[in-house]
């Protein structure tokens, strides 16, 4: 699958045509490691300005040599967004697995699609770009990836139901921008907040209805 979608170019405030695709390869993983990681590290050092070199985590990124086989697992679905010849966002969905079940009481037990990994390139995130004295380049990439997750959920006959575990610093995106329902902290996943879409909420997100 390869489709044109609009994202926002922050320099002009105008939409530009990016590409969203599902044929992800190991090269894309490596691109995030080579192009994204150094920028995140640099911004992280600025943000935590009292840190020293020893404090930079050495193991926070995926070991891509072990993740490559995940590309062949049918339960996994990957999406990338590309613009200006660069990867601007990457996402991994799981369509079956231990987290692919709804927890909201009104839909408990029903199947959902789980967002296992999503990331927007660091130069597009205002908090990181600002730490480096720059303006974020493109916007609405996270929105497009979550939109893809909902559309995939519908394709899988899960009616748009999507679930994920959010880090504390990303909760605002999922509650405010995506309007997902926070369900509760999950002790099985470092007490991260579990959020979920009902079919109706997913549809509202897709259409912009409140």
């Amino acid at each position, binding site marked *: 699958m390869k489709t044109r979608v609009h994202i926002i170019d922050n320099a002009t405030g105008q939409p530009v045509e990016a590409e969203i695709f599902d044929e992800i390869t190991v090269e894309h993983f490596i691109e995030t490691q080579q192009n994204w990681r150094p920028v995140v590290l640099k911004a992280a050092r600025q943000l935590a300005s*009292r*840190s020293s070199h020893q404090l930079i985590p050495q193991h926070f990124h995926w070991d891509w040599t072990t993740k490559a086989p995940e590309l062949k697992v049918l339960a996994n679905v990957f999406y990338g967004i590309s613009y200006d010849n660069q990867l601007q966002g990457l996402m991994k969905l799981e369509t079956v697995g231990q987290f692919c079940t709804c927890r909201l009481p009104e839909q408990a037990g029903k199947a959902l699609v789980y967002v296992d990994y999503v990331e927007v390139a660091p130069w597009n995130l205002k908090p990181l770009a600002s730490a480096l004295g720059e303006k974020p380049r493109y916007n609405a990439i996270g929105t497009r990836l979550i939109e893809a997750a909902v*559309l995939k959920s519908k394709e899988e006959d899960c009616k748009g139901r999507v679930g994920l575990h959010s880090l504390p610093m990303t909760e605002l995106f999922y509650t405010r921008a995506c309007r997902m329902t926070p369900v509760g902290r999950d002790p099985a996943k470092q007490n991260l907040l579990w959020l979920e879409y009902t079919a109706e909420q997913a549809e509202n997100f897709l259409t912009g209805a409140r």
Partner: protein
Amino acid sequence: MKFNSDLGWLKKQAALEDNCFVSVGGLVSAVEDLEQKSQQATASRTAFVNLLNLARREHKLTWEQFSQKLDVDLAELIEIENDESYKPTPRTVSKIANFLRVPAEKLFVLSGLARAHDKQFQEAALRFAARSQPVKALSSEEHEALKEYVKFLCER
């Protein structure tokens, strides 16, 4: 897959997404991890500097006399006290540990030369840093704080 082509919707979403971190299980988790570690490092560092200062004053020594007693470079002691980003040498930290009669490995953690894994240790450092303030003469409270903290370092 049919994505939303309404540009009004897109701009509204972009406004909501602006200023947000967007990540699940990705590199951005490192930023939060780093901020937490930085706060712990600051508290440890303050505890180390205050420990040094109180110990010097407890013995009624000037910095010059203290450096001679410890057999360390005076310039380095001044760097330790004034520059929070300065990392003392392991030799200096060992000498300080000997003088204070506390385990060297504990001071390596406090000074930032080694990583702390013990939450109780970090909390004690934070409490000590908060209780000990550098003034001319040791108050009885500072004296007490110093005594208790040295006891804690020796006992664990």
